[in-house]
């Protein structure tokens, strides 16, 4: 009993004495950052963009990263990836390379975010007037055919957002490939490919209905990742309106 008592006392004491976590990036040199940039350019930029502004992967040129509150977490995220997302573990980087890449990622966020021209309030009005919520959800409102935009400003840089508004067909995001299926009895379904395996495909049509097909039931199955169901706004929005809409989308950070 006595032994237990002493042990029980000792445990919290031990925890109290725990050292504060050391910053793994504290001793980085300019040469380390240069190597981090080089590694980032080859291995991270394909998804995050060469300046970290986001693309298939998240916008990293922000002062606060959603999955990495501190530098230890940042190193851990780069090392281990983020389950359920496209962020893979960087097993190929050794410990010093991990720290170099993390240092470079942090440096991206400390650069003053390029001022986004445009007025977010006006952009919001354009978003509503153009019926964007017919396909996108922001903070719980809207319809879900297209990607949710609640946090799109945290995940995507302004340059990426502008590019998608002008020409949405470039780099269709995973999970939004267009599919067209024709059954033996000439029924045709067109929509977003929700899932697919070697024998079946699941499609969501423009009315947000799920359709399930066995591939053997189909006479035709086309997939197109070079087109998007979203209209291009290059011709229908003025440059100033585009700026406003980008500014609004960039302001969406998931804050409620």
């Amino acid at each position, binding site marked *: 009993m006595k032994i237990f008592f002493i042990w029980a006392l000792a445990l919290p004491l031990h925890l109290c004495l725990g050292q504060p976590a050391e910053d793994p990036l504290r001793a980085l040199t300019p040469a380390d950052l240069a190597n981090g940039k080089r*590694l980032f350019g*080859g291995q991270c930029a*394909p998804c995050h963009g060469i300046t970290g502004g986001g693309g298939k992967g998240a916008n990293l040129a922000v002062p606060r990263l959603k999955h990495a509150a501190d530098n230890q977490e940042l190193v851990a995220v780069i090392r281990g990836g983020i389950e359920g997302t496209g962020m893979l573990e960087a*097993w190929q980087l050794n410990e010093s390379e991990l720290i170099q890449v993390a240092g470079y990622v942090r440096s991206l966020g400390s650069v003053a975010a390029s001022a986004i021209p445009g007025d977010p309030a006006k952009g919001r009005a354009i978003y509503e007037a153009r019926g964007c919520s017919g396909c996108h959800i922001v903070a719980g409102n809207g319809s879900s055919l297209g990607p949710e935009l609640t946090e799109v400003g945290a995940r995507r840089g302004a340059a990426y957002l502008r590019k998608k508004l002008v020409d949405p067909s470039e780099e269709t995001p*995973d999970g939004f490939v267009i599919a067209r299926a024709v059954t033996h009895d000439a029924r045709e379904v067109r929509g977003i490919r929700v899932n697919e*395996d*070697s*024998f*079946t495909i699941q499609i969501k049509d423009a009315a947000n209905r799920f359709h399930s097909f066995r591939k053997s039931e189909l006479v035709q199955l086309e997939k197109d990742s070079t087109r998007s169901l979203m209209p291009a706004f290059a011709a229908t929005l003025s440059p100033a309106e585009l700026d406003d809409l980008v500014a609004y989308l960039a302001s969406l950070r998931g804050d409620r």
Partner: protein
Amino acid sequence: MKSLALLLVLAAVLCAQVPYERLTKAESEPQNWLTYSGNYSAHRFSRLDQIAAANVAHLRPVWMYQVKNREEFETSPIVVDGVMYVTEAPMAVTALDARTGRPLWNWQRPIPRDLKTLGFGPNNRGVAILGDTVFAGTLDSRLVALDAHSGAVRWETVVADYKTGHSITVAPLAINGKVITGISGGEAGIRGFLDAYDAKTGKRLWRFWTVPAPGEPGSETWSGDSWKTGGGPTWVTGAYDPERNLIYWGTGNPGPDWNGDVRPGDNLYTCSLVALDADSGKLKWHFQFTPHDVHDWDATEIPVLLDATVRGRERKVVAMANRNAFYYLLDRDTGEFLHASPYARQTWAKGIDDRGRPEVLPNTAPSVEGTLVYPSLQGSTNWFSPSYNPLAHLFYVAVREMGSYYFKGEAKYKPGTFFYGGGEHPLDGDRAYGAIRALDVSTGKMQWEFRLQSPPWAGVLSTAGGVVFGGSNEGNFYALDAVTGKPLWEFQVGGPIVANPVTFAVDGKQYVVIAAGHALVAFGLN
């Protein structure tokens, strides 16, 4: 009463006794699955034909056995007289009633806290059986011998130090009085080897180093101290020819993987097939598929022993669909190069010359900026098994069609840490796909192809019923017509399949079993 007791004792002795002679004639008892690949020749083919092309559409799950561990479940079961033996991640062996899936015994040990698997997941691919003993390798680099009737430990031998990145995931190969095991650690700068242990005592009988020491034949293909961290792991079960008493085993990549600057030369015997005398462990011959590899194209694919007519002459050959995208035939006695042809997309070699050496194209080595090469780091195929169907004379291989940007980085050896010098950025998603391909064994020519949604991690099994079984990353367990490749049946198991199928029979009923997601699923006809 006395005679009944005697009968019971006899039954206990006879039951599950697997003498070496039984292993040499595994084909003659197709109700059992006695070795990793089904027979010593590594065919992964069964003479069972109750489940056939004509009725496989009626196949349905009969039982499931769920594992607690969340790691990938990669076991290839052994089945002996109604009892199934499987390994579970990270370090466990379980015996199951093969008819019902109910556990009979379990042996497990916790993984040491300081153990790191460098370059692979904490998995295991299966056991071997000989006599009344089941053998398994462990992640902490031990070989464990368990009583087949209870799971009690008979002996345990340290094969290598796990703290230096050595590990065992490979299923052992049991031959006459010996247990052969390979080793993992190709991304940790180990010096690879293949070991033989006395099946009764666990005493090491011989060790073949896959990287020669200075002065030994082959050492001229290394420079300086590079041989000490030269890699050449032996992490997939090989084949055995009892008549020749030769073990055929594939070796993995040289270390460091993607930066070959510190190891100029061919780097023997990495990325090779070695034929070893089973009594002495002495090298009879070797064949190197990828000299001075810089893409991590281990030659640890299954070497398949078969007879084939090559350029008009009947030959005893070893066939291998190599990770480097070429299908090879070698003479089984001499290792003479007989044939190579691509079975998947490749952009690194102009071809294979008359001696079997690849004609490497310029600008295909990894670079700082990234070099796009087909196949990807994981190769055109990998550890998951091919199957040889002697009735159709076809070689089935699960193919990964994916390219990769290869990066070159620095590599500094520190024991027990990664030592690879680079990496890759694969062209995945819809830019990649998979396939099951049937190759003519003699010519390597593709006879049919069945397309898969993504590059697979599951092997194939073929049967005398005219069926090929395989699995997909998306959870499809399926049957194809062995002659035409036409899909005949499919079941969605609900988790990725990263394992090889096997088949067996109990009480005259045939089953097909696959590890899928975190369960073992057995299928049978109604």
